[in-house]
C-alpha cells in the first residue's frame, strides 16, 4: 500500500476509484487526475497504487474494462462501473459518511 499523508486505507481508495468512474468510463490516468483534482493531491501520492485497486474491482465485477482510443489517439484501457459497482458505491459512500461523522463527533467533543 502506498504511503499517503492520511495513510489511506485500501477500502478508501476503492471507494474513491468507483466514485471517479460514476460520471463515465475513464482510463487509469484519468482516474488519477480526477482524484488528484478533487483532493488537491493530498490523498493519492503514489499513482501506481490505482492499478491494483482497478484490477481488484474488475475481478470483483464492480468495474469492467476494455481497450479503446484515448483523446490523443493512443490505445488506452478504459474502466467503467458495472451495475454491481454502482450499488456498491452507494453502500460504501453511506458507510463512509457515517464513519466520518462518528469520527468527527469524537474529535470535536469538548471535555464535559
Amino acid at each position, binding site marked *: 500500500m502506498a504511503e499517503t499523508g492520511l495513510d489511506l486505507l485500501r477500502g478508501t481508495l476503492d471507494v474513491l476509484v468507483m466514485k471517479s468512474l460514476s460520471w463515465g468510463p475513464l482510463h487509469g490516468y484519468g482516474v488519477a487526475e480526477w482524484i488528484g483534482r478533487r483532493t488537491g493531491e493530498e490523498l493519492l501520492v503514489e499513482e*501506481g497504487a490505482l492499478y491494483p485497486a482497478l*484490477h481488484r474491482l474488475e475481478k470483483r465485477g464492480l468495474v469492467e474494462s476494455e481497450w*479503446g482510443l484515448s483523446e490523443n489517439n493512443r490505445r488506452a484501457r478504459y474502466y467503467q462501473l458495472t451495475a454491481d459497482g454502482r450499488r456498491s458505491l452507494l453502500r460504501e459512500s453511506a458507510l463512509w459518511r457515517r464513519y466520518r461523522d462518528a469520527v468527527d463527533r469524537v474529535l470535536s467533543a469538548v471535555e464535559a
Partner: protein
Amino acid sequence: MARPHGVRRLFRWPTSRQALADELEAEMAFHVERRAAALVEEGWDPEAARQEAQRRFGDASTVRRECDAIDRDRARRAGLADALHDGAHDLRLAARQLARTPALTALAAVTLALGIGATTAIYGIVHAVLLSPLPIDEPERVVSVWEDWEGEPASVSAGNYAEWRRHSRSFAELAAARGASVNLAGDGEPERVPGLRVTAAYFDVFGVAPRLGRAFTAAEDQPGEDGVVVLSHELWSRRFGADRSLLGREVRIDGRRRTVVGVMPPGFDPLAGGPELWLPMAFSAEDLARLDEHSFWTVGRLAPGASADQAREELRAISTRLQEAAHDGQRETEAHVIGVVEALVEGYRTRLLVLLGAVALVLVIACANVANLLLARGAARSREMAIRTALGSPRRRLVRMLLTESAVLAVPAALLGLVLAAVGVRALVALAPPDVPRLSEAGLDAPVVAFALLLSLGACLLAGLAPALRAARGNPQQALVEGSAGAGGGRDRMRGGLVAAEVGLSLVLLVGAGLLIRSGIELARVDPGFDVDGLLTVRMSLPASRYPEPAQIAATFEQILEAARTVPGVSAASLTNRVPMGGGDSSNGLLPEGVAFSQEAVVQSQMRLVSPEHFATLGLDLLRGRTFTAADRAGAPRAMVLSETTARRLFPDEEAIGQRVACCEGTPDGDPVLKTVVGVVGDTRPWNLATEPPPEFYLPLAQAPPDAWRWLQGTMDLLVRTDIQPETLVPALRDAVARVDPELPLYDVSTLEERVGQSMAPARFNTFLLTVLGAVGLLLAAIGIYGTVAHGVEQRRREISVRMAMGATPRHAVRLMVRRTVPALALGLALGLAAAVAAGRVLEDQVYGVPLADPATYAAVVAVLAAVALAASLLPARRAARVDPAATLSKL
C-alpha cells in the same frame, strides 16, 4: 477502433496470464507518458518531467506483483470463456458457410448419410446378433458340451451325459436337451409346436427363472411323473391370451394331459431353436444306459474357478473310461466345450463381419467423395482463406474453422443417416434368411444410435481433414495474386489420391460381389441328385402316447400314404424319415460282413427309411440292381440300397450288389443284423447345394429296425409328386390325413423347390447385399471422378484456351482432361487388386466352385471399373471441347 463508450461491448478477454501482464505494461506506460506530457505542459523540462512522472507513479514492480496476484485466476477463467466463445463463433460461421452453398452441402450430407445409414443398419444387425449379451445370467460361464465325431463336435449320448453329470466337478450345473416338436390339441385347430425336452437343471444352467410359476422339479424329471409343461411367453400370449389362470390347468400335448407349471420370460431362447414349450426329459434307466445314440444337446454352467479347458479335460477322461468299460479295450475319445454365445453365432460371425467390413468400405468411399467436394469448395474459397491468414488468423484457427464446418455437416448427415438406418434395419430383418439367431431383436437401440452419432462425427471429420489441412498449408500470397483459379497442382495430387482410393476400395467390393455371384451361378448348376420340380412335402408326427407300438405307427403311416395317393393330382407318393433339404442328421455306422470292427472300418452314413415308391417319386437315378418292392416286407430277407458314395466307400474294389452289411440294430462286433445290398442309386445333396453329397443308404420302411421309431420320434415326411402347382394340393392332403387321424397336424409344408431356395438363402442374401454395396461404391467412385474432372476443366479453362488458341483441336482438349484421370485410375486399380487379393480370403467359406483368385472375376471387375471411370471422366471432359478460347482469354 474509435469506440463510443459503452455502446457496443465486444466481450474480448485476453486469453493468458502473459497477455494480462502485457496489458498492464501498456496501461502503466500510457499513464507515465500522459503524466510526463502534462508536466511538460506545466513548463517542466521533458527529462525531468519523465522522472517526476515515474516518481509519482511509485514502484512499478510492486504494482506488477499485486496485479498479477489479482489477475491469476481471472486468466484461468478467461481461457475457458475464450475457448467457448471461439467455439460458438466457429459454429455460427460454419453454419453460415454451409448455408451459402446449399446444393453442395446437401450433396455432401446425402452422400455421408447414405454411408452412415448403411453402416449403422448393418451394425444394428451385428450388434443384435453378435454383440449384445444374451439375456442369461453370466453368459461367459455357460457352455455347450459336445462329444467328438471324427474331430467335429457331435451330439451327446444319454449315457455319456449321465456319467458326465455324475462325475464331473467342473460344472455347477449340467443339463441335457433334445428338440421335441409336439402336437398341441384342444381349443381349436391342432397345432404343431416346436418344443424342447430338457432335464430339470436346464433353466438353472442359464440362470433364468420362469416369469410365472416355476420350472420343473427333479421329481418331475422322472418317467411317469413328468405330466407337466413350461410354456414360452410367446405361446402363452398367442394361444392362451396371456391368461394367468392357465397355471395349474391342463393342456393336451401329443394326446397326453400335462399341467402348466410355468411361463418363461419373453425371448428366452439361448439355443436359438425357437422352442415354444419345455417338457421334462424324464430319462429312464434304459435311456441312461445308451452310449451309442448321440442325440442330445448338453449345456452346462461352469463351476466358479473352473475353465472350459479344465472341463474339457475332465469330460474327456470320463468318456474314455466309460467307452473302455463298455467295449473292453483301449478307446480314446474327445469332448468339446464351447461358450454358448460363441456356439450360437458361430455360423453367422464371418458373414456378418464381411458385410460390416464391406459397408465400412462404402462409408470410406463416401468420405473420400465428400472430401473431394469440400476440396472443390476449398479451392473456391482459397481467396477467403488467404485474406484471413493475411489478417493474422493463425493457421490452427483456420483448420479448426474448417473442421467445425465438417462437424456441423455431421448433424444433417447423422439425422438423415439414422432415418435411413431405421428403414435399412427393418429391410434387412425382412430380407434376411430365416433362423439367424436374435435377428428379430435388431433395431436402433441406444448403443446403435450412439454408434451412428460417433460414426457421423468421425466420417465428417475424416472427410474434412484433407481440405482443412490443404487450406491451412496454402500459400496466401500466391492465392491472392493468382486469384481463385490458381490453386496449383498440389491440390490435384490430393484429389487424384482420393480418386485412387475410391477406385481401389470399389474394386475390393466388386471383387467380393463378383466372387459371390460367380459362386451362386456355380451352385445353380449343381445337380441335387433328384428332380426338384413338382414335389411337395409335409411332415407328421404320431405321438407316442397314442401310438405306443411300432406296428401301429407303421400301419398308420401306411394308411396315410394310401389316402395321399387317392388325392386328385398326385401322380406318386412316398414316405421317408428325411426328405432332401429337410435338415437333420441321421447318421448310422455301416460295417461290411466279414470285416473286423474298428472305428476306421465303419462308414458313417445317413439312413433313409423309405417306402418302396420313394426312389421313383423323388426321381433318383438307379445305377445298378433294383430298388425296393412290396416284397421287401417284415420277415422277408433284409434289403438295403446304397448311394453311390456309400457303395464306393464300403466296397472300393468289389461289386456292392449282393454284399451284406451290418447296421442299425444288434451290435456290430457281437451280434450284427445283416442286410443285403440290392441296388445302388445316385447321390443326393441332403442339406444344401454347396455341401458335397454325404454317404447315404436306404432301408425299406416295412423292415425298419425296432428302435427306429424311437429315434425318429414317430415322425415321417410325406412326399408327393404332381404335374399341377404343388401348393394347391395342401388342403386335399390335409383332408386325406384327417380321415386317418383328425388330431394329427401337418407341418413343415413346402415344395422341394422352396427348400432348395431356402438352403441357399443365407448365401443369396450376402451376395445380394455385397452386390448392392459394390454398386453403391462404384456409383460413388464414378461421381468422385466426374467431380474431379469437371473441376479440373474449370480450373484449367485458361490453359485449355491457350492450347486451343495455339491450334489444339477440341479432341485434344478432351483427351488432355481424360488423360489426367489415368494415373489415379491405374494407381487405384493396382492398390485395389492387392487389397482384394488380401481381403478375398475372408470369403473362403462362402465361395463355392470358384477359386478365390478367379481370373475371370478379377478381369471383369477391372474392365467394368476402368470403363465406368473413363466414362465418368469423359462426360465432364467434353466440356473442355466447348471452351471458347476467345471469351476466356479476353477476361484476362
